[in-house]
């Protein structure tokens, strides 16, 4: 049977991708942000996950204003890095796992989550930056990836509670897949950031760290945070943190923390990263 063995959360700041791609990670500005991922790179190399279910948001790359799916799952064979306006990142093509992805898609729909199914798309920094942070710069990504895209751009995004429940349903779907696979669920985006308007640059380290605390153990208090609180406390783009709750929901009742990292700033954003295992 397929097993969810761990959950990873990470910011997916595009500038981290640029720093990785152009070998700037040792520069004084970037070094502290990247240092917090060294533990995880070693750990991932030992864990060797077969599949990562990677929860992220598309930033007007695969989806424009024509179609706005709330929850969408990638069931394709592979996904190319998107050209976001400066040419595609020079990172490997992302290999999917269509059989498990279709199994999850079917299971979720039967479980009353009305998923959008994607067979072809390009993937932007939201998906490829976390791969770079966790795996560095390999010739090919060391695992299959199932993209799970969440709308957090056009309001209203899904509630934190709904995200958590989707994570629980993903866990049920993975557990009913016959093949023995080591599966991780990653939640990406956040933490505090506001990329717009006169309030740009807002960072709330105390709130972010309380959110990190809330992911650990058997509390489910984070699922009840309303959208307005993310917006007021962590900036307009802090809403991305609802995607971390899909990962947390997939961990089950309780979690143990294996690794944690927080650094300000990377570009406009607070870098947050945590590695959890289900208890």
């Amino acid at each position, binding site marked *: 049977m397929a097993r969810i063995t761990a959950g990873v959360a990470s910011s997916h700041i*595009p*500038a981290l991708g*640029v720093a990785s791609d152009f070998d700037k990670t040792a520069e004084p500005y970037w070094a502290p942000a990247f240092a917090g991922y060294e533990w995880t790179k070693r750990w991932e190399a030992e864990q060797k996950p077969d599949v990562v279910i990677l929860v992220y948001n598309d*930033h*007007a*790359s695969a989806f*424009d*204003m*024509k179609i706005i799916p709330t929850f969408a799952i990638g069931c394709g064979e592979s996904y190319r890095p*998107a*050209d*976001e*306006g*400066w*040419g595609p990142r020079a990172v490997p093509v992302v290999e999917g796992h269509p059989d498990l992805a279709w199994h999850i898609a079917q299971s979720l729909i039967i479980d009353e989550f009305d998923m959008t199914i994607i067979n072809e798309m390009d993937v932007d920094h939201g998906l490829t930056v976390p791969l770079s942070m966790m795996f560095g710069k390999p010739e090919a990504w060391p695992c299959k990836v199932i993209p799970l895209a969440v709308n957090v*751009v*056009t*309001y*209203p995004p899904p*509630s934190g*509670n709904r995200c958590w429940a989707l994570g629980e349903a993903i866990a049920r779907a993975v557990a009913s897949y016959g093949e023995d696979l080591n599966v991780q669920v990653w939640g990406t985006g956040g933490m*505090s950031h*506001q*990329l*717009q*308007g*006169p*309030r*740009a*640059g*807002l*960072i*709330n*380290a105390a*709130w972010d760290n309380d959110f990190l605390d809330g992911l650990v153990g058997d509390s489910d208090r984070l699922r*009840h*945070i*309303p*959208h*307005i609180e993310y*917006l*007021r*406390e*962590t900036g*307009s*783009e802090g809403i991305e943190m609802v995607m971390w709750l899909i990962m947390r929901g997939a961990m089950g009742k309780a979690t143990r923390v294996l690794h944690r990292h927080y650094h*300000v*700033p990377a*570009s*406009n954003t*607070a870098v947050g990263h945590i590695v959890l295992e289900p208890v």
Partner: protein
Amino acid sequence: MTRVTDIHAYLADFDDIPGTRVFTAKRAREGYHLNQFAMSLMKAENRERWKADERAYLDGWAMTEEQKQAVLARDYNRLLDLGGNIYFLAKLFSTDGLSFLQAVSTMSGMSLDEYAAMMIAGGRSAEGQRSIKEGR
């Protein structure tokens, strides 16, 4: 459970956040063609046509004159007011060769150096930035 039961109150709260334009359906509708224009700059051949004659390129889109002027002026706060979304507008400033940090600083009322220094010092405090009505 903090289930939203009043959509009007849910939306009204967004206008109470200082210096912020939440990308609501109202803004998404107003900015539809502006955002789709920006999206078109993801293709290298479109970027070439855009760079060759910005005004002519804009005239191929069903945008308001106000939106076109704000694009030509790269007035990002104005573009947000006119329904632009930052992830779409990112295609425009990326085509100009600007990073998110550079582009975002232009909306903050600070110079790039001041803005970058504020970020290195820990960012803008949430104190006094949470609610207009409550002044907190």
